[in-house]
């Protein structure tokens, strides 16, 4: 068991454990935090996959920004008490079909694994495959159009968010009541 194997195992445990926890916690905050753990795991995996820039980006953007945004919203709406769903209540019937569905998805997605190679090809030490420079060159030479489009997507997302949940004067008596 090489160092890589060990660290991969740890990362995998973090990823799957975090995700599993996130999905099963009653409280939204716990869920968000377990997701952060899961994303840290993913970041480590990127490092192992010779994608240092991605690893850093994962930790900074995903774990650091998006999930923090989630936490921010959870705090804003004071949703800590969560929704009485998983444990009791009427969604009991959906628990089993969801599990079955998840299992089916897992089996299906894991199928390709059975036919692909078991070890990595040797990594040439000097070409800086995963380094920021290599990735930068790839992004700006081959995929510039993709990035322009992503820029647009982000812009649209920002405008959309403001439009949907923009700063409106808070109404005294919300319609429909709590």
């Amino acid at each position, binding site marked *: *068991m*090489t160092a890589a*194997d060990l660290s991969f195992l740890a990362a*995998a445990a973090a*990823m*799957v454990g975090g*995700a599993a926890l*996130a*999905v099963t916690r009653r409280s939204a905050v716990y869920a968000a935090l377990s997701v952060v753990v*899961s994303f840290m795991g*993913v970041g480590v*995996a*990127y490092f*192992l*996959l*010779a*994608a240092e*820039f*991605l690893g850093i*980006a*994962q930790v900074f953007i*995903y774990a650091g*920004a*998006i*999930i923090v*945004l*989630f936490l921010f*919203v959870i705090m804003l*709406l004071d*949703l800590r008490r969560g*929704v009485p*769903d*998983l444990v009791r209540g009427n*969604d009991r019937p959906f628990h089993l079909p*969801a599990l079955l*569905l*998840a299992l089916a998805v*897992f089996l299906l997605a*894991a199928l390709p*694994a059975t036919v*692909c*190679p078991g070890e*990595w*090809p040797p990594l040439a030490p000097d070409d800086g*495959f*995963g380094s920021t420079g290599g*990735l930068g*060159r*790839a*992004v700006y030479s*081959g*995929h510039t159009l993709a990035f322009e489009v*992503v820029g647009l997507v982000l812009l649209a*997302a920002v405008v*959309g*968010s403001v439009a*949907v*949940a923009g700063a409106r004067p808070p109404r005294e008596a*919300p319609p429909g*009541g709590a």
Partner: protein
Amino acid sequence: MFSLRACLVVSAALLATGVYGVVARRNIIIVLLSVEVMLNGAALAFAAFGRQWLGAAGHAGQVVVLLTMAVAAAEAGVGLALLLAFERHRRCVDSDDARTLRG
């Protein structure tokens, strides 16, 4: 032991967990988080393939991961905005409440 096969298994696990979260949970926050998890599962698979094929193809894999992150961010943003609007209207975040559009 650490190989493409392992990475794919893990990403499948992430994807499955995400699906479970989306289908089973009534809390919209958890649903959105599950979606994020599913996206990461996919991104991990791309990175693994990137590592496997190296060269220009490898970089392409990594570019996709980068893109996924951007799109995930945008999606999270809009999702949460909708969640805010929904919560302001319905004082709760239970997806079962939104039943007006039924047959």
